[in-house]
């Protein structure tokens, strides 16, 4: 096997060059998320014939079309429901979902909640850019309070979803959030998420300079990356300050977005429990017949 060392080699191995150029704008973070995912798959040495990508609607949902693997580009918000079907039909497949904040936490919120609750063995990679980019910049359910969008010209007044918080509360086996501006931790987290049995959520804070940045004085990509640096805090640092810091320090970090691994547990998933139940019932039947 040829060893992959550069991004160019990685792209050649995993992407469909015939689909280029991509639809992504300059400065878009979706390609970065794809790159991290592919590095993770490469480092794990996964057989791409055993990987299926599913997606819904939105910019990030275009990703499966660019990857040289099986993909299911579905309807708005429903990718996780479709993916559950894929996993049920063939549990040997590794099912990865690319979704966005609008797709996953807006129109598809219910599917997300129940897949996490059932702990279905899927890896959900949610690209969170705070906006419905493809339709031109409507405010999404994860948009920070005060952020400007076509549907929130005077600033968003709705409280944003903490998607990782929800997934954690629902008992998902693996939950992590990283901004794309951190190059190493995301790849490690994607690797952990992919390998994890049960439901994994990887949330990426990814820039959309075109539909989100420009309206929020963050059109310059460097400013958006800096925004992530200024407005995020490692979970460990957050907890340390909240436990031992003074009031001023607490006030400073109170509204920051926490990043890192929120949950990493081993809980049996829906299909494992289903399998056990089947075995038990069949065993009962066989022993019953013998009598």
């Amino acid at each position, binding site marked *: 096997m040829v060893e992959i060392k550069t991004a160019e080699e990685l792209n050649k191995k995993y992407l469909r060059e015939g689909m280029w150029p991509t639809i992504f704008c300059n400065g878009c973070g979706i390609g970065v998320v794809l790159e991290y995912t592919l590095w993770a798959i490469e480092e794990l040495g996964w057989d791409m014939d055993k990987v299926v990508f599913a997606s819904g609607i939105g910019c990030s949902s275009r990703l499966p079309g660019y990857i040289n693997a099986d993909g299911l580009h579905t309807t708005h918000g429903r990718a996780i429901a479709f993916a559950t079907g894929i996993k049920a039909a063939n549990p040997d497949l590794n099912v990865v979902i690319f979704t966005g904040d609008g797709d996953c936490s807006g129109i598809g*919120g219910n599917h997300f909640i129940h897949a996490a609750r059932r702990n279905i063995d899927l890896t959900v990679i949610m690209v969170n850019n705070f906006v419905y980019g493809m339709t031109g910049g409507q405010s999404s359910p994860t948009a920070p309070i005060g952020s400007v969008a*076509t549907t929130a010209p005077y600033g968003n007044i709705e409280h944003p979803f903490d998607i990782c918080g929800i997934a954690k509360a629902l008992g998902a086996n693996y939950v992590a959030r990283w901004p794309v501006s951190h190059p190493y931790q995301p790849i490690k987290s994607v690797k952990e998420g992919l390998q994890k049995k049960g439901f994994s959520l990887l949330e990426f804070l990814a820039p959309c300079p075109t539909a989100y940045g420009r309206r929020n004085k963050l059109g310059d990509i460097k400013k958006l990356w800096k925004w992530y640096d200024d407005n995020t805090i490692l979970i460990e640092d957050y907890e340390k300050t909240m436990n031992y810091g003074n009031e001023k320090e607490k006030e400073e970090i109170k509204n920051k977005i926490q990043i890192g691994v929120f949950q990493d547990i081993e809980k049996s998933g829906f299909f494992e429990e289903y399998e056990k139940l089947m075995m038990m019932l069949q065993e009962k039947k066989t022993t019953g017949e013998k009598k």
Partner: protein
Amino acid sequence: MTIMIDTGNYIAAKAAVMARPAVVPAYPITPQTTLVEGIANYVKTGEFKGEYICVESEHSAMCACIGASAAGVRTFTGTSSHGLLLMHEMLHWAALARLPIVMCNINRTVGPGWNIWPDENDSISQRDTGWIQFYCSSNQEIFDTVIQAFKLAENEKVLLPVMINYNAFILSHTSMPVEIPKQKEIDDFLSKYKPRWKLDVDNPITFGNIILPADYEKIRKDMQNSSENAKKLIPEIAKEWKKIFGRYHGDLIEKYRCDGAEYILLAMGAIGAESKVAIDNLRKEGLKVGLARVRTFRPFPKEEILKLGKQADLIVIDRNISVGSEGALFSEVKAALYDKSDAKVYGFIAGLGGKDVPYTDIEKICKKSINGKAKDCEWYNLEGV
């Protein structure tokens, strides 16, 4: 009156706001987005005084419309394609609850095979929901129909929701000059909505209660009767509009050069407008062809079509396909003639997935039919299949 040069979506937004709805719930979908953005902009300018709600899905948009309408206020929304399909359950609900909601649907192709170009399969597949369906062929017609739709829907003899369909991009994103009446004139034409039945704490009623079979059947029959009433009211409203504003787009159908025609072409939406050019050219060549542009698919103009069938042979173009059968308009036209007319009817499927249907193709379709070379239901100009 002023002239506004703008796209079909912004014109629809203008019309919706001038009708003074109290609630507009909406969710963005290409190519509807600019319609609801247009309404949002009127919130900013102060011209729209109602509540504008950004909901989390089209299903929720129609739910919110139903809630608002049941509470007794005028309600409007817009959607397209998959958005409309996601609303399907609520479309039935709105119609059965007899709520006079008005909605624009921008006809867009249904996936997979993701495609945002015009195709009527989205709204055709909502045929049996009980909604009145208009198909527009110009931005002026969109404006006039939105206003007229409220008057129609809210009439106690009708009380059915109305869907105003127009083609993606060909109309939704194309600018045309449109005559806009004064607000006062619209207010005079469209009196305030005063529902006889609504959710009211002083006089409580329930929408959506359990109902036994015999009564349910009555509800269905009443919808059918109301739809028949709409057939009579649509021409009356069009006549009144013409008297006040001087514009007329036809009744249930718009007839164009049908006098003395031996062949009449039937089409809907933007293809209907394009067909006028084809008819003019064919007439120049001495061919006796006319056009009947179908404006309302529900209620279906059965009687008018039978009249056409007694006069001429009919050529039908469908920008939709009921897979396993044929074009939806083609089927319904034939059913309208059954046992009452000997007219030949030729059906063509054209323009699916947004494939262009220029007037030159429409001329060819007509000539093929006139020359007796058309098949029963033909997929016009289908490549490589």
